[in-house]
């Protein structure tokens, strides 16, 4: 066997080993129940903000403390603590991807991804709203639109 073939085999074996190790370090997408069932393990919790519960964030007291209750599609909820500022679109977000670990009754997350209906369905929702408000005022302000065309 040529040296180059040996090098080839060694390097390819290395690459495969790296990818297999990677598969072991991956985390999972979880619901509240399954996240609670594996405390201390890093998961992606798919949930949304429970609006009936208080959201605690006061940048003046501590800019790095946000706490709220997340509820998943099965209706289970968990208290979440996030040591960062409140993410954009947090309250209107339809779904939150919370990355972190569950421990002692609290889900500590280190990253929050907000998913907005507007970003997914081609800005449908805000558009509808805008169109309706635009239309209600249209009889009075038609002139400006006409002069445009």
């Amino acid at each position: 066997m040529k040296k180059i073939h040996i090098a080839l085999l060694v390097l390819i074996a290395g690459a495969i080993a790296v990818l297999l190790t990677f598969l072991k370090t991956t985390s999972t997408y979880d619901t509240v129940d399954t996240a609670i069932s594996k405390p201390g393990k890093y998961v992606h919790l798919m949930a949304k903000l429970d609006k009936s519960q208080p959201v605690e964030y006061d940048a003046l007291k501590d800019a790095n403390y946000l706490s709220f209750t997340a509820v998943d599609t099965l209706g289970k909820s968990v208290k979440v603590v996030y040591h960062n500022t409140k993410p954009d679109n947090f309250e209107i977000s339809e779904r939150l991807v919370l990355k972190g670990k569950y421990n002692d009754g609290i889900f500590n997350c280190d990253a929050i991804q907000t998913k907005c209906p507007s970003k997914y369905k081609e800005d449908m929702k805000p558009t509808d709203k805008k169109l309706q408000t635009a239309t209600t005022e249209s009889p009075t302000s038609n002139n400006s639109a006409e002069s445009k065309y």
Partner: protein
Amino acid sequence: MDYIGEHLLPGQLGHFFIVLSIVASFVATFAYFRSAKSASELDGDYWKKLARIAFITEVICVVGTFVVLFYIIHSHLFEYHYAWKHSSLSLEFKYLLACFWEGQEGSFMLWSFWHCVLGLILIKTSKQWEAPVMMVVSFMQFALATMIAGIYIFNWKMGSNPFILLRDSGVLDNAPALHIGGDVNQPLRPDYLLSIKDGNDLNPLLQNYWMVIHPPVLFLGFASTIVPFAFVIAGLWKKKFGEWTKPALPWALFSAAIFGVGIMMGAMWAYESLTFGGYWAWDPVENASLVPWLILISGIHTLLIYKHTGHSLRATHLFFILSFGFVLYSTFLTRSGILGETSVHAFTDLGMNFQLLTFLLVFVVPALVYFAMRYKEIPAIKKEEAASSREFWMFIGALVFFLSALVIIGKTSLPVLNKILGTKLAPPENVEFDYNQIQIFVAIIVAALTAITQYLKYKETPTKYFWKKIALPTVIAIIAASFVLGFGDVNYEKETVGFMAAIWVAVACSIYTIIANAAYIWIGIKGKLKISGGSVAHVGFGMVLLGILISSSKKEVLSNNINGIPAPLAETEDPRENLTLVKGLTSDMGKYTLTYEGDSSHPKKELSFYKIHFKRKDGKEEFTLTPNSFVNYKGNEGLMSNPDARHYWTHDVFTYITSIANPDNTKDTASFKPVPLKINDTVFYSNGFIVMEGLNTKDSLPKELFGEKGELHEAPLKIYSKTGSIYTVTTRLAVAKGNTLSLPDTITAESIVLRLQKVNADRTIELGIKESNSIMEYVTIKAYKFPFIRLLWFGVLVTAIGILMSMVHRISQNRKSRLQS
């Protein structure tokens, strides 16, 4: 039904161009195919002529589509979905191009446009290769044209038409006010367009000059990868296995330079104006464009090996096929919506997944099958490379690059794996470290090889020769590296000790690369700049590596303070990176004191600029940074922030807004608490106490303002804050024309409001005290320090220049050899 105010002609013209371009590119593909296949020269020329006409027609169509779509955006014809969705009346002219390629359709058109340019150059220059190479390019044009076709074939929608009307796009279907009788089941009102006053606008984060220049460069990079691929196919087809490498090499170099710059422009954009806290986050979209570039570089190196030794021709075939193949794969990943949660900036799904997958497979599968079929015929040298030869180590380097690309794309493809296997695997906890801990070793190996390999000769290197030449640069590099590591304070303790050691080795190796390759220009090729392109590119590459290593490992969070009430720390606590600044109040941040001085707004947009004054504690320097934010922009909630940075030669100080006082909270809910006081009385509030210093009453007041029995009471107060600050305030109560008027005084820094509510006959008063957070104006910021970031950008520039230098050199070489033959 006729609708008022619509301009239907541009759209019809545009769609006509698209349909014609589909037909023309198909004809071009077919005619080039016949031309390449024909046995007689006469026949071949006939088909070639036809193919050229078809291709030029195609070019006219693509340019026509481009012009029409730009006209629609520029004229704000919001009856077209594309203009409505991506632009607005207030958009500056320079961003009109940006919104052109914000959408998938526009970016496909941009891609196709570059193929037109490249195709015309190929027609002009590629001589006997024209027919087979242009067949591939024309077929690609056909595939891209179908992407924007928007034609229905038996209920199956092919492509997404950029000229679709707003009323046909489905957006208006659920807006009752736009339909006759307010009923969504009825048709639209004929005057519906009057209500569409403005477009949805370009995503504010994309309103940036980078969005104007980065996509064209990147897409030229994407587009140009087809040329080496097409030469490979042409070579396999015509069984001219080695010959194609000559004309393909300058093209591959061109592609590498432009593609590389395009990717790094994206990184610069992310660094300068997005708030990812850096220039590279191993985001799937970033990876997807990096991977074909890495493989392209591998291909260029194996091609050079072949050129000098005859080895590695098979690998070169594979690398160029895969480099283009991964461009298509990355197109599939970023446009199909499959990345979902894992990426922050993929395109939205247009429901074209089947077509995108077909697009990928129709190129890659036949190419790989063809390659496999001809594999045995591709000449290869039986004799083994010597371990002291340049080609041996060059090949190892190319292989490491290639495998590192496969590892990156493998990890990036996790969502694809989930889709195929039905699993629910999510990216690991620390995504960046997961990539870095592997790629750092790639960096070490590649940097070391880049430093040494130039000093080896092709075929075999005499040991003595090698050591004689490499001794000096090695000694200099050792000295320089010990200096940097000894005094540079490169400490990265966030991860393991092993990782830090790896960083040190990588730093040393990249310094070695820079010095050895710079020295090679004199030692190896005696200062002949014309042929020094490779060395220059390698010097640049070393700078890129060094810049990445130092700026990432020495990145410092400046706003790493705990401000206000410290909360208990969890076990794996992230450093708290946000700092709140109250307006006018100076806060402490490491070496600096910071003051939020105020904000101003953009005249037309919901964009605010925040002035943050930085002052070094040693008094040596002060400056103001003005990061900005879109606040509650168009139905979004919260901030879209753009950072501001102060640039130094050795580092950047970088800050952006992460949170501001919520305007909703400024609706004051706290109420005044009444406190009876007499002169010299003291009353406490949460952060100190207030002393009433006196009481004056004036009664000879202008009658026209105060009426007959006007009175004005003034109570001077002194506020002693526990921070040591003392404020004086004179609260006033006026009795005018039978009404009592009290003007509240606000002491912002103490977040209290004071009001003189009542003055009694016995000279006692009732003071209203309100304490509220909402009266405070504040911003929360993050601030970073990035050292040596300029080295990275400068390195990219040097690399690109080096690659282009060798491209020029190879072109003139080809020209000479043509003249000789």
